[in-house]
C-alpha cells in the first residue's frame, strides 16, 4: 500500500527553540497492511540512511504497549486513532491506501523536543520523586497477608497503577496539564493501606512539582482520559482533587 507521511523534523542542535522545526513530506510505496506503524518508520529510516540522509529520531523500546517510550502525535491525536492503544500497537491496516498521515512530537513546554519526534519527559520522573512512592526501606516488611485488602480496593488501585507514563495525557490537553498522570499515581497509593501514612502530603507535593515543571492547570475537558492508552479513568482526577484538599486541612 501507499502512504504519504508529513513528519515534523527538528534538528538536535537548535532543540531549545521549538520554532525551528518544519514538516517534511515522504512518499512510501511498498508498505504492507500487516506492518506496524513503527515498522513503517523503520522502513523509512532504512531508506533515508541508504540515501545518506538523517533518519527520523523517535523514542521506542518494548513495542508491545507497556514501556511507555513511544510517543507520536498522529493526525492530531496522541498515539493515533485507535482507542486504548500506544503508537507501537498501531498497524497500517487501520489506514486506507493513499492516505496522508501527519506525525508530530508531543507539544508541551514541560516536554522540550530533543530532536524530531523525541521529547524530554524527565519532568515525570521529578514528579514521582516529589512523593510518588511509599517510604519503606527493604527489610522492614511484615508478612504480605497480615493486612487484608478488599478485592475491589486492590483492583481499583491496580487500574490506576497501570499508567505507563507516556505523556499522551499532556499532549492531548489544551493546557498541557499532567493531572491524569499525577492522579493515577496519587489514586493508586491512596487506595491502599500502605499508602496512608504519607497520603496527606503526597498529593500536595506532587501537584506542586507538576506546577513547577511548567505543566498547565486542569480545566476538566477530559481529553486526557479520552486518549490514554491504558484508559486511566477520569475519576482519578476527582480523587486527586479530594486528596489535594485534604492535604491542606
Amino acid at each position, binding site marked *: 500500500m501507499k502512504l504519504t507521511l508529513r513528519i515534523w523534523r527538528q534538528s538536535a542542535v537548535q532543540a531549545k527553540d521549538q520554532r525551528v522545526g518544519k514538516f517534511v513530506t515522504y512518499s512510501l510505496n511498498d508498505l504492507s497492511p500487516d506492518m506496524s506503524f513503527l515498522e513503517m518508520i*523503520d522502513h523509512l529510516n532504512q531508506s533515508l540512511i541508504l540515501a545518506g540522509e*538523517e*533518519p527520523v529520531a523517535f523514542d521506542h523500546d518494548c513495542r508491545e504497549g507497556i514501556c511507555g517510550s513511544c510517543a507520536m502525535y498522529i493526525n492530531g491525536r496522541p498515539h493515533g486513532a485507535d482507542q486504548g492503544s500506544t503508537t507501537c500497537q498501531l498497524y497500517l491496516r487501520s489506514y486506507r491506501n493513499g492516505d496522508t498521515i501527519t506525525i508530530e512530537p508531543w507539544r508541551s513546554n514541560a516536554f522540550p523536543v530533543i530532536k524530531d519526534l523525541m521529547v524530554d519527559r524527565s519532568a515525570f520522573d521529578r514528579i514521582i520523586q516529589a512523593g510518588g512512592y511509599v517510604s519503606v526501606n527493604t527489610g522492614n516488611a511484615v508478612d*504480605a*497477608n497480615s493486612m487484608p485488602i478488599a478485592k475491589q480496593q486492590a483492583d481499583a*488501585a491496580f487500574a490506576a497503577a*497501570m499508567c505507563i507514563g507516556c505523556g499522551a495525557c499532556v499532549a492531548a490537553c489544551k493546557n498541557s496539564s499532567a493531572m491524569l498522570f499525577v492522579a493515577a499515581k496519587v489514586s493508586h497509593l491512596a487506595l491502599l493501606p*500502605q499508602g496512608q501514612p504519607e497520603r496527606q502530603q503526597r498529593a500536595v507535593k506532587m501537584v506542586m512539582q507538576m506546577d513547577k515543571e511548567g505543566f498547565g492547570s486542569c480545566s476538566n475537558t477530559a481529553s486526557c482520559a479520552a486518549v490514554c492508552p491504558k484508559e486511566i479513568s477520569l475519576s482519578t482526577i476527582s480523587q486527586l482533587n479530594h486528596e489535594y484538599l485534604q492535604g491542606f486541612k
Partner: protein
Amino acid sequence: MLNSKIPAVPLAEQWHTYQETTRLISPANKRRLEIIVIGTGLAGASAAATLAEQGYQIKAFCFQDSPRRAHSIAAQGGINAAKNYQNDGDSIQRLFFDTIKGGDYRSREANVYRLATISSKIIDHCVAQGVPFAREYGGMLSNRSFGGTQVQRTFYAAGQTGQQLLLGAYQALERQVALGKITMYPRHEMLEIVQVDGEARGIIARNLVTGELERHAAHAVLLCSGGYSNVFYLSTNAMGSNVSATWKAHKQGALFANPCFTQIHPTCIPVAGEYQSKLTLMSESLRNDGRVWVPKALGDSRPANGIPEAERDYFLERRYPAYGNLVPRDIASRAVKEVCDAGYGVGSSQRAVYLDYADALQKHGREVLANKYGNLFAMYTQITGEDPYTVPMRIYPAVHYTMGGLWVDYELMTTIPGLYCLGEANFSEHGANRLGASALMQGLADGYFVIPATISNYLSKHIGSSQAIIDHPAFAQAETVVKDRLDQLIQIPGSQTVTSFHQRLGKIMWAHCGIVRNADGLKTAIQQLQDLQAEFWQDVKIPGTVQSLNPELDNAQRVADFLELGELMCVDALHRQESCGCHFRTEFQTDQGEAQRRDAEYAHVAAWEYQQDHQWQCHPEALTFELAKFSQRSYK
C-alpha cells in the same frame, strides 16, 4: 581456578551462616563509598534503591529516557514465592527442587536454595511498597499455578506483573534520588569498564543525547543490564535490549557462563514479513484451553475452519498423551519446529501452527474464555487482524530469555574483583532452562536482598581508598579505546545498514543455535559469523556524527558486540555434547527422541575466558548436588 565461595556448611544453613559471618560497614563509612549500577530493570532498580537506603552513594545508568522503561516492565505472568498461602504443600525445598529440575541439573544448588529462601521476603516487601497484586474477595493474596507446577505459588497483577514490580522498584529508586543518595543518568550507555590495579573502579559512559563521553569512578560496579535474546534479531525483548555492558566486561576478563542456554517460548505471534522488527509473546496460559494442531495432509491450504476434524493432527496430544498441550516450553517449541520443518506449517509463511479455541468455546462459552484470555485475544486481533473467537490463532516459538550470562560467585561477583552481575545478566539460578515466573523472583532477590548483604564483604576492604581516582591513567586509556572504536565505526565507508547486518546475524543464530543444534550446523555458523563480522567492519553504513544524538551509532556498537557473542554461543553449544533443558543437540537424544543428558561429562557450568578474537578457553565449574538427585524428565 574458579572459586564460587559457597559457605562450607549444609545447604539449608549457607545463607544464614553467610549473613552472620560477613564483614559489615558502619554508616559513617558507607557514606564515603560509591557504587555504579548499570541498568534499572528489576535487578538494577532494586539494588540501587536498597544500597542507597543502606547509606551508599549510588550512580545509576540506563539507556532509556527514564529508569521506569527497562524491559522488566513487559513481564506478564507472575512471580514465584514459597509462601504456601494455598496450603498445598509448598515449601522452600519444593521451590528449590522444581527450579533445579526445571534447569535440568545445570544450575548451582547453593544459589538456587538461597533464591527459594528469599522468595517470600520479596512478596512481603513488594506489598509494603504498594504493589497491587491480585487478591481474593476475602482480601488475601491470590495465587495461580504456572508452567505446570503442582502447587499454586505464583503471585500476579493481571497480565502486568513485571510492570507493577518494576514501578515499585522505580519508585523506591526515585525516592532515593530525591534524598540525594542516587544520581540518575538516563539516556546514557556504558561503553567500557575501567579497571585500576585489577579491580573495577569505574566506567566510561556515552551521553546518548549529546554524544559526549563521560568518566565515572566508584568503589564497585554492578552490571544489571539484562539478557541478550536480541542476538537473534527477532525476539520478545525490547528493541534496545543488548549485551554490550556484559560483553565489554567479558572482553576485559569476566568469564561468560553457559552462553548457549536460550529459552524459546512456544506461544508467540508468528513473523508476518521481512519488515518484522520484534516478536510478541502470548502468555503461556493460553495452552491451558487451546489445542495445538496442523493439517494432516501436506500442502493443505484450506482455511483452518474448512479442515474437518479427522484431517487435523493434534500433534502434542498425540505425542505426549499425559501432558498434551501443556508440555514444557522447550518440548512444545521443538515439536512445533519439527512439524513446520516437515512442511505442515500454516499461514502465509508456513512457520506457524494453529492454537484452536473451538472446543473450549463450545464447552465453556465465550464469556468464560473472555474472562480468562480477553486481553490476550484482543492483543492478537490488534496485531494480526484476526479474531481468535472465530478463527484459530497462529503461533510460533520465539526467543524469550537467556539463562547464560556473566559467571558470578555466591556473592554475585564476576571474575573481575569489584565487578558484580545481577538478574538476567548473570548465569546462576536457572541452569539450562528457567521456570515460568522465576525471572522476576531472581531479579528482585539479587537486587533487594543478595547484593546488599554481600557487597560489604568486598567494600569493607576499600573504605580507605580514594574516590578521586578519576584522573588515573586507566580512565584516560579506557576513554581512548571507546573513542577510537566509535570513530572507526562512523568512518567505515560502507553501503549496508546496521539493521541489515543484525537481521543476517539473527538468521544464522536461529538456523543453527536455536531450538535444535548439531555439530555440523554450529561449525557452519561459526564460519558464517566470522565472515559477517569482517564484512560488518568493512561495509556498515552509519549516518551522522559521533558527537551528537545518533541512535544508529548506538545500535551499530551493540550489533558489533552481538556478532561476537553469537560466535561464543555457537562455540559453547558445540562444546556441550549433550542435550539438556533448552539445549537440544540432535546427536544426543533418546530412542524416543527426547533430550539425552550426559551427567558424567557435562554436569558443569561452562565458563568462557576471552583470549583473543575468535578464541576462548573453557573453565568448567563442576556442579555437585547435595540435595537434588539426578533424574530424567518424561512427559509421555
